[in-house]
């Protein structure tokens, strides 16, 4: 990647202690709203740092993803962008996007997710029971943070309980923590696709009360969806859902274990504090893990269909643009005292789940799982503590933790 040079405002910038990273971001955002970066793949992209400018870009429909979907243009990204992701909802623009999105959104709505809350808490407690039975030092990633979102998503999609294990194996294959080879992943994806196609056919024939059934039967309202449309949605949820949610949850637990003050505060009422704590973990949790933080991230980009000025910067027609959630989440104009980890923060306009038409489809589900996952573990194991150093994989993009050794 090429680097923009201004004293102390370069972007991307190398990892440094969290407090310094916050200061660096502050100088960067005081200097300019966005930086043009040359990606390792796919060429140049504007990366928007400031919170308000990022929101403005994300809610402006003159920025589209069509050229990426059609293949007319390569996605500027850190790694070659996976083909199977290019065919998903993320890359559709209105009106096709609106139709699909609305159908799925209804199935993962705040309302629907609220109804899943009790079963999420019950499953979290089952996982905790198992950890207690095994005793000793447990890996919180493998035994708690990964299985919880997998269970919730498979019940949302309507995967029969008898098949859960198979489903878990295939779907966790794409997880960066699984450490599978490219070839193994391709084979697993093939099996998963065959399985899901079969399940969609079954739900078409005999609907249940689940997401696949409602998508398969959406035609009642003149909104027919073909299998070819449903399958990528299921994939997007699986691929987007597990890894990120598991990461958020692990980060959340670790950030509280690293902050005695905020953990003590959380323990006063985990259920009541979980909602604001979850948002603060999304915003700032990565800065609380005790590891250095760098700058350079960007979400999946868009392409400008015409010249657009955002926050004083001209983005020319045809240029790609993306947002940098790390900076936007620490923008002093949007967040008071952005370097402070405060689980009671009520005004928290972070962009970790993005914003606008393409905001994270599973946002309500991810939030609920994070809230429930945090509250249950600290309620059941109030003396939870680290039993070794966390293991982080720096060789994959999302830099997930693969082991968080804990005891209680």
């Amino acid at each position, binding site marked *: 990647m090429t680097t923009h040079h201004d004293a102390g405002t370069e972007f991307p910038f190398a990892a440094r202690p969290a407090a310094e990273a916050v200061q660096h971001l502050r100088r960067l955002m005081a200097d300019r709203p966005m930086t043009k970066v040359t990606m390792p793949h796919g060429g140049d992209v504007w990366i928007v740092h400031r919170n308000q400018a990022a*929101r403005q870009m994300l809610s402006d429909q003159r920025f589209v993803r069509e050229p990426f979907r059609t293949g007319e243009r390569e996605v500027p990204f850190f790694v070659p962008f996976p083909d199977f992701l290019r065919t998903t909802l993320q890359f559709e623009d209105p009106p096709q996007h*609106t139709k699909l999105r*609305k159908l799925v959104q209804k199935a993962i*709505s705040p309302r629907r997710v609220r109804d899943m809350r009790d079963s999420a808490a019950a499953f979290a407690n089952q996982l905790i029971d198992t950890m207690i039975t095994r005793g000793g030092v447990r890996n919180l990633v493998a035994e708690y943070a990964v299985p919880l979102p997998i269970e919730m998503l498979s019940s949302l999609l309507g995967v029969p309980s008898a098949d859960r294990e198979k489903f878990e194996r295939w779907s966790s294959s794409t997880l960066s923590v699984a450490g599978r080879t490219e070839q193994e992943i391709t084979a697993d994806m093939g099996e998963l696709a065959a399985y899901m196609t079969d399940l969609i056919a079954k739900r078409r024939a005999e609907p249940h009360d689940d997401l696949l059934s409602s998508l398969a039967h959406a035609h009642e309202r003149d909104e027919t969806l073909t299998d070819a449309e449903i399958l990528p949605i299921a994939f997007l949820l699986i691929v987007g859902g597990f890894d990120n949610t598991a990461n958020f949850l692990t980060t959340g637990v670790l950030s509280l274990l690293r902050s005695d003050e905020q953990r003590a505060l959380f323990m006063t009422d985990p259920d009541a504090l979980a909602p604001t704590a979850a948002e603060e973990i999304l915003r700032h949790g990565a800065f609380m893990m005790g590891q250095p933080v760098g700058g350079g991230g960007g979400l999946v980009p868009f392409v400008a269909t015409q010249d657009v000025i955002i926050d004083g910067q001209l983005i020319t027609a045809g240029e790609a643009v993306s947002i940098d959630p790390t900076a936007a989440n620490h923008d002093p104009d949007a967040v008071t005292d952005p370097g402070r980890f405060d689980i009671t923060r009520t005004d928290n306009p972070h962009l970790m789940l993005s914003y606008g038409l393409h905001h994270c489809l599973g946002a309500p589900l991810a939030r609920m799982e994070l809230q429930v996952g945090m509250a249950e573990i600290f309620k059941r194991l109030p003396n939870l503590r680290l039993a070794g150093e966390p293991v982080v994989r720096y060789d994959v993009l999302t830099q997930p933790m693969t082991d968080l050794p804990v005891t209680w």
Partner: protein
Amino acid sequence: MPKIFYTQPDGRQTALEATAGDSVMQTAVRNGVSGIVGQCGGSLSCATCHVFLAEENTDDFPPVGDDEDEMLDCAATERQDNSRLSCQLILREGQEVHVTIPEAQL
């Protein structure tokens, strides 16, 4: 200049001057009013901008559209007769609007 009064579930009130053409959601998000998330940026696909519109304002806005109606069913807090999605409440010059924010959006 339109004016909006936001009442929190606990009764606290925030009064804001707004810009005609903006929505009640946009004005809230821009000024950091708690309890209005507006995650989808007003594209009617998140239901996190749910508000209860004061009775005296009922006729100040176009009625609930089909898409808004469907999304209101998805809101985290049970909808009521005066429920609206605040991204659909576009302000006009001189308006004074009162809304109450529900217990939960997420």
